[in-house]
């Protein structure tokens, strides 16, 4: 199992980077770019829900905030793409931090309902604040990105860009989860009282989780806006939040590579079943239920050895046994 894990990740990364050499189809690129955007969103929600145990159903609102912010600063203020991308992340992270304070008073399902409310408030504001957001029609003509004087127009360029962005976000969350802040988050999810007893400032860590989670959602939103060149409130409704939630569940709570895989599967999967027309949503829904029932730890759950016997085998291969 250890071997599977060590080889799978580099192999997958290599394949993802080599795809432009193999594929010319614009439609396939579009699906993969969307998978990349959702991978970022899923990794962000995974930090909040999978690691810190905070049930948020408002992730699409942060995604939308980033998209609208980026669209507005480029359209109205003429900002170039890169500063707009970064500023969207920071702005959304800031809003996430502000939202965190009232949200921290809510637990479990009540937090889910509260964040769901936030999602609706965002969507309704986007519909009604017409002078700023363009109302139900949304914003059109969002400029395509330009990197160091090189315009990004072809699908391949967008594809390579989202890979870089995904890798950066992956690195960010991987570093957080691999050091003491990540452990503190898991500690909070497992037992808040015990986490406090080892000195974890629960409020601070929960707010930070909100900030980093919404920061990444803001980046995804900004990229989406400049990729599609058109955004409307429909892109950021509750259904999106639920989709991202399903991706986290599919990938496994707290499992970072799983989040990426979960997003890719749920974006590409329905496309693969397109020939079945309306029935594809039926298949989508029922397969999701099956996964949650049969693989409660997500599609990669099998990778984490659980039995002491498997553990012992692992220890032997890693040479760290002891008595």
């Amino acid at each position, binding site marked *: 199992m250890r071997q599977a894990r060590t080889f799978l990740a580099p192999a997958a990364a290599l394949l993802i980077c080599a795809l432009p050499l193999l594929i010319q189809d614009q439609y396939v690129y579009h699906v993969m770019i969307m998978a990349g955007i959702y991978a970022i969103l899923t990794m962000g929600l995974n930090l909040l829900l999978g690691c810190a145990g905070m049930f948020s159903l408002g992730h699409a609102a942060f995604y939308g905030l980033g998209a609208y912010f980026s669209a507005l600063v480029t359209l109205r203020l003429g900002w170039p793409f890169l500063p707009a991308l970064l500023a969207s992340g920071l702005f959304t992270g800031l809003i996430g931090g502000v939202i965190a304070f009232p949200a921290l008073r809510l637990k479990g399902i009540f937090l889910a309902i509260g964040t769901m409310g936030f999602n609706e408030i965002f969507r309704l504001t986007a519909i009604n604040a017409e002078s700023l957001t363009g109302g139900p029609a949304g914003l059109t003509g969002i400029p395509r990105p330009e990197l160091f004087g090189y315009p990004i127009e072809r699908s391949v360029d967008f594809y390579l860009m989202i890979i870089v962005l995904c890798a950066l976000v992956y*690195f*960010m969350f991987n*570093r*957080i989860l*691999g*050091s*003491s*802040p*990540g*452990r*503190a988050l*898991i*500690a909070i*999810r*497992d*037992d808040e*009282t*015990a*986490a*406090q*007893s*080892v*000195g*974890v*400032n*629960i409020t601070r860590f929960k707010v*930070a989780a909100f900030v*980093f989670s919404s920061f990444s959602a803001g980046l995804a939103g900004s990229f989406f806006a400049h990729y599609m060149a058109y955004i409307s409130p429909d892109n950021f409704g509750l259904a999106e939040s639920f989709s991202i939630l399903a991706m986290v569940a599919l990938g496994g709570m*707290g499992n970072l590579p799983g989040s990426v895989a979960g997003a890719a599967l749920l974006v590409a999967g329905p496309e693969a079943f397109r020939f079945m027309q309306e029935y594809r949503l039926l298949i989508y829904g029922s397969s999701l239920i099956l996964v949650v029932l049969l693989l409660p730890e997500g599609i990669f759950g099998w990778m984490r050895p*659980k039995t*002491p016997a498997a*553990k012992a085998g*692992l*220890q032997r291969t890693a040479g*760290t046994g*002891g*008595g």
Partner: protein
Amino acid sequence: MALLEVRAVRKVFGGIVALRDVDMTVSEGEIHGLIGPNGAGKTTLFNVLSGNYLPASGQILFAGRDLAASRAHERVKYGIARTFQNIRLFKSMSVADNIKTGFHGMTRTGWLTAIFMPVRAFKEERLVTAEAAKLLERLNLTWAADEPAVNLSYGDQRRVEIARALAARPRLLLLDEPAAGLNETEVGVLEHLIRGIRGAGITIVLVEHDMRLLMSVADRVTVLAHGQRIAQGIPEEIRLNTRVINEYLGGVPA
């Protein structure tokens, strides 16, 4: 010298006075027993000491500083660590990760350090891993390092919880009924461990119903009943104190 001085601490839940102006003095380096019948307020006092409850009034002087208003996660930094009556390990973590989490107060890696200074974070992580391994070795738990904490026996889980508390390098360790649910052999191991911790210069406050264990390890004992302190002294005095016998120990004094 008194490391911990509890002065007139009062805690009220609704209309019930759980702690009625309790005083307690714990000297540096001693094992201080805390006993009393169920509902006497032992666990309440414990939670007040660890910051899980804030007292309505009174002072908690720790090394000369009043901590009565500080919160639970801050107490760890001042040097107070605790274990729980119902073991509270991090369920999804391995034994080693539980201990590593205990080092939280020592670590300086924040969110941004972890991202922008990965080398520094990595070095610290290596240090924490090494320290955790040392602690596991001291408690003869190395074999369990990668085991999910919940798979261990009750006695071993207790020791992991104590190890996690020790990881914070406390000056004062609060043990809440550590012998509860342990068999005789495990209690023997626990007693040895408690003496070893004191030997390392750590002061201990021990709540315990196992009188044989408590009377044998405690240097001094405080007795609570109905939220009040009814006695404080060395175990021999406590055993002969008629009020303590009537309220708690019962029977003929040994």
